[in-house]
């Protein structure tokens, strides 16, 4: 009887997950913000489901750390609300929110053993000795730390220490959400994929809501099912890795995701068509609106091809990376990059190019027109 009850509690433990909703969130570090630039975050709306793997991706200064601090409760937003499972937690502090956070640099107790480091958050919450022991061993197993549990933490390598930090975040079953703030910064580049694999596997195993904050596209796209791309305090797109690559909703996403990024050049929109370099560019999206200050056409280098007719360009430079060629071309509107296989014959001097219409998009004031 008692045993059954214990199992039930355990199951409930593991079922505590949270959906996270951010409603019309804005934040300024100034007391009297005036212009748009005074806001670190503007009009953030997010709906994150239970148990999902999410990433916040953007360059430094885009507002992602501010947003992370608002979710964890370290910062109170100037406007808007934070809800966990539809319950308003905007006024609650980090402890009350039951959040685990893993930082860039390992936060561990050097003088304690690996075991005691992992057990520490559980002891603080008054769990019994056997519960602690089970939990620590389970997490130790998952992170392949089982053989080093009795070692002093100080003797470990940087990635060993960061694994303990991860373990300390994962060991608690009462957390609503686990947040990672650039957790692989200190890891040797050659070992990063191992920990990326581990993290992803862990998410699949324990199915807890996880939020991963990073400026690195590989990190974000590898970990998350849904990636939130941030730019100058705004969310510019939320989508799967495929969506971000195939259909950038904002010129910044086109530029930031993919290497080299999207070609973005000025164009005119007339009668629902893209006019570029004196030609009409076919596209699959319908262009209903045209009243913008600035209109641009976007095409990824992967989807530009040499052809017998089309847009006239000059070939400026070819870099052969051994794997493919990156070709810099120039037309009157600006430069256009092309990515072609290494065996492609590159025309000398003057050439013509066409855009794959499936991946040709028009942007009005930087946002996709569709």
């Amino acid at each position: 009887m008692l045993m059954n009850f214990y199992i039930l509690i355990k199951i409930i433990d593991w079922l505590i997950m949270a959906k996270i909703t951010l409603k019309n969130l804005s934040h300024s570090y100034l007391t009297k913000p005036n212009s748009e630039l005074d806001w670190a975050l503007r009009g953030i709306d997010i709906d994150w489901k239970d148990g999902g793997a999410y990433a916040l991706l953007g360059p430094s200064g885009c507002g992602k750390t501010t947003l992370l601090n608002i979710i964890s409760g370290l910062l109170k937003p100037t406007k808007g609300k934070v809800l966990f499972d539809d319950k308003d937690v905007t006024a609650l502090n980090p402890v009350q929110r039951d959040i685990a956070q893993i930082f860039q640099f390992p936060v561990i107790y050097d003088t304690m053993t690996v075991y005691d480091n992992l057990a520490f958050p559980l002891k603080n919450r008054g769990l019994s000795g056997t519960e602690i022991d089970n939990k620590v061993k389970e997490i130790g197993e998952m992170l392949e730390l089982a053989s080093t549990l009795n070692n002093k933490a100080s003797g470990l390598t940087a990635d060993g220490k960061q694994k303990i930090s991860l373990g300390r975040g994962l060991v608690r079953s009462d957390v609503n959400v686990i947040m990672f703030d650039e957790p692989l910064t200190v890891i040797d580049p050659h070992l990063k994929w191992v920990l990326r694999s581990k993290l992803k596997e862990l998410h699949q195993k324990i199915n807890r809501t996880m939020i991963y904050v990073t400026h690195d596209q590989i990190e974000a796209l590898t970990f998350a099912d849904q990636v939130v791309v941030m730019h100058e305090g705004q969310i510019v797109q939320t989508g799967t890795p495929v969506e971000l690559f195939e259909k950038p909703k904002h010129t910044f996403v086109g530029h930031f995701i993919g290497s080299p990024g999207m070609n973005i050049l000025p164009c005119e929109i007339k009668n629902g068509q893209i006019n570029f370099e004196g030609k009409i560019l076919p596209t699959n999206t319908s262009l209903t609106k045209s009243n913008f200050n600035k209109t641009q056409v976007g095409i990824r280098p992967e989807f530009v091809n040499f052809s017998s007719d089309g847009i006239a360009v000059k070939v400026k430079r070819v870099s052969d990376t051994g794997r493919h060629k990156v070709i810099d071309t120039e037309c009157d509107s600006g430069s256009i990059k092309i990515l072609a296989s290494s065996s492609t014959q590159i025309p000398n001097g003057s050439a013509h190019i066409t855009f794959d219409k499936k991946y040709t998009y028009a942007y009005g004031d930087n946002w996709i027109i569709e």
Partner: protein
Amino acid sequence: MSPFFKTKFKFLHMSLELKNVEKKVGIETHIHSTNLKLEKNTINILLGSTLAGKTTLMQIMAGLDKPTAGEIWFNGENVTGKEVQKRNCSMVYQQFINYPNFTVFENIASPLKITGIESGEIKNRVGKVAELLKLSAMLDKKPDELSGGQQQRTALARALVKDSDLILLDEPLANLDFKLREELREELPKLFEDRDCIVVYATTEPLDALMIGGNTATLLEGKVIQYGKTLDVYCKPENLTSAKVFSDPPMNIAEIIKTGDTFKLTDNNVQWKSNIQIKDGKYKIGIRPHNITTYKEGNNSVEINGKVLISELSGSESLIHFTNGNLNWVSLSNGIQQKNIGEDTTLHMNVNEFLYFDQNNRLVNYG
């Protein structure tokens, strides 16, 4: 001397040559006996991991450090003992080094001021180089008002503003974030195009070398492994070490047995046919990750099955790590190829791009 004759004279002699250069610190050898000849108007990449000896080699080239044996010749002159101040060279470091109290203009102009060039000419030259590096709008700002990329551009501008014979760049892009690195890496070769100088560029990243082009020296543990045209070194590495240094993600290496026209991985039963000319026997095969793909490439491909360890997505390509036999493999495909951890998958290896090494790790054939 007529200007024509002067340039002609420069053309004939400009080169930097290291003759049996060696550097020992105590009982440790930091640089093993090195011979290297760099010609004018070339960009030369020193490619190797941290502690490979790149920085030491550059400091010896600049005269900031003296070799314990060997000689350095510059433009036909033995400069081994010559101090750095008396040589005409510039250096850019990984850390953005600028004078914090100077404006961007003053920072860029600083190497010209000490040479006593008149102010009109200084303004002219700084203006030109600032335009090249997209700094024209920032000339009145102080370094701490700039982004990391702009700070490094300022340091680069300072190195370019005087007509140095030798420009040394020590991992100049390492502290920049990914997109800025991509942008500057592209601009760098253009900056040096019309200059009569020798550029040396140290980096840990193979992609830097491939995008910049020029010549590459692969380095490991204080030794130059191979030096030649960048694409030649990449496509035809003399040995396995050079191939490994010049591969990111790491090259897949496996043992094979060749009998007649049949090649077989010793670890499992993956086999293929090729009429490549090498004797029957045991070899090591090197397969670059981009020659293992989720789709077929080339007219001769062979399937390999594996269990997915992870699929890493970079935005426009996918790195799938998988196990086959006792080995971990890495593959690199175009586009977003999502795979679940633990999933069984079949990939295609492009046989035309294999590198064959003998038991002494020397390249015996390729393709």
